[in-house]
């Protein structure tokens, strides 16, 4: 069990996401999780061993390290990635629930059910409409909130995103104000800024996706209202056409963007 398992779970959600959602997932996997595992963990690997204080007083180093790093950058990023990925599970659960209902209908021999066999239900891609739209939109909203909260926590805990070379510590049992030196401060600053930049990109993608979903929702509503007035039977044809276009757009995007198989 590791980040690969999370990747498998989220890869399943990819099928039912919008194009922006798929780009977000790609950015998450390649520029955040992979960078964290392959590079950042090694940079912070020796952080306490190589945190040196200019004193021989036993315990001073431990206490100063704990004072300046209540929670390590690397652990905070790991938690951020876990929390930010979790709302996508809501969508996965909702899709699984819908699939379960369709299978139940199919087994009962319901005539409304338009599938030929159970395999087709398993492979089917659900459109983001009805209650699934609400679940999907809430998941994006929660993602945004978690990203913002973690970025603020970072900024608040470390007084900005720069890692200083030298910290002055006078926590007990250090006898006086003692100079403590952080290991690899420049490399850590570079990675911190990189992770913050990618978080910001993810926030922008989430905001764009939210606006896209809201715009689509209001557009559909106004079309329905307009059609109901003038052409009571026309709205179904329009919806099917729109659904087909959505399918074409998302399928073409799936081919160009690196996707993850379910």
């Amino acid at each position, binding site marked *: *069990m*590791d*980040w690969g*398992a*999370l990747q498998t779970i989220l890869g399943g959600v990819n099928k039912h996401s919008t194009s922006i959602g798929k780009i977000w997932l790609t950015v998450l996997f390649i520029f955040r999780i992979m960078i964290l595992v392959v590079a950042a963990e090694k940079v912070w690997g020796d952080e*306490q*061993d190589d945190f040196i204080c200019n004193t021989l*007083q*036993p*315990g001073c*180093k*431990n*206490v100063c*390290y*704990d004072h300046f*790093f*209540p*929670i*390590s950058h*690397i*652990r905070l990023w*790991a*938690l951020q990635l*876990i929390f930010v990925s*979790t709302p996508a*599970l809501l969508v996965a*659960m909702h899709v699984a*629930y819908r699939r379960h209902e369709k299978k139940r209908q199919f087994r009962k021999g319901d005539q409304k059910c338009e599938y030929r066999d159970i395999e087709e239900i398993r492979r089917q891609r659900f459109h983001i409409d009805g209650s699934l739209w609400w679940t999907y939109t809430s998941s994006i909203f929660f993602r945004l909130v978690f990203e913002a909260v973690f970025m603020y926590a970072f900024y608040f805990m470390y007084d900005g995103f720069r890692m200083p070379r030298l910290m002055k510590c006078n926590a007990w*049992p250090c006898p006086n104000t003692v100079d403590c030196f952080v290991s690899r401060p420049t490399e850590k600053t570079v990675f911190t800024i990189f992770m913050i930049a990618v978080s910001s990109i993810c926030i922008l993608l989430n905001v764009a996706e939210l606006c896209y979903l809201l715009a689509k929702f209001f557009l559909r509503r106004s079309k329905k209202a307009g059609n109901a007035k003038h052409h009571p039977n026309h709205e179904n044809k329009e919806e099917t056409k729109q659904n087909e276009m959505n399918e074409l757009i998302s399928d073409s995007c799936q081919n160009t963007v690196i996707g993850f198989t379910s």
Partner: protein
Amino acid sequence: MSWGFLCDLLSGVNKYSTGIGRIWVAVVFIFRLLVYIAAAENIWKYEHDEFECNIEQPGCENVCFDHFFPVSHIRLWALQLIVVSAPSLLVVFHVTYRENREKHHNQKLYRSPGQRDGGLLCTYLISLILKTAFEVVFLVLFYKLYNGFKVPRLVKCDVRPCPNTVDCYISKPTEKMIFLYFLVATSCLCIVLNLSELSYLIFKYPLKRYLKRHNKKHQ
């Protein structure tokens, strides 16, 4: 043999679980197992090396560390995850037993071996009760062993061969405390999920039977 085995076990149980049971599996996978492997394990990795006492007396540091940490937090956490997931094996065994029985008699004995009725429902309820009990036991154990869920920066040790009362400093106490609180929160969430599932199952079947009888009377 690693955590992958636990993942396979829980994924197998997922098939026979209720909706709440599946949420429980997701919480255990993501907020407990993944957090443990991706973050928590590394915090406690060098806990003994970084445990420092204000004394040169050989053996004093070892003895003090052993006195204050009879079992490390991280090992207790791992044990908790394993023990809490184990009752789910009962359900898997029961379903396998049903399937083998059908094969042995070469006829359909059950509507579906994985359907939660009769004996399997009892097994499922017992596994829920055991899971909840183990969660509570481990939380109490954590509380009693470490005098609460706080990790102090400094502990005073006077165990032989330390000559006097000696100051010993624990490494990364704040980070350890944050993750311990996280562990407690997720344990409590799992307890709540287990209790909700238990009440749902206990009230669902009698309610169904009552409604059936009520409808028959009216007909």
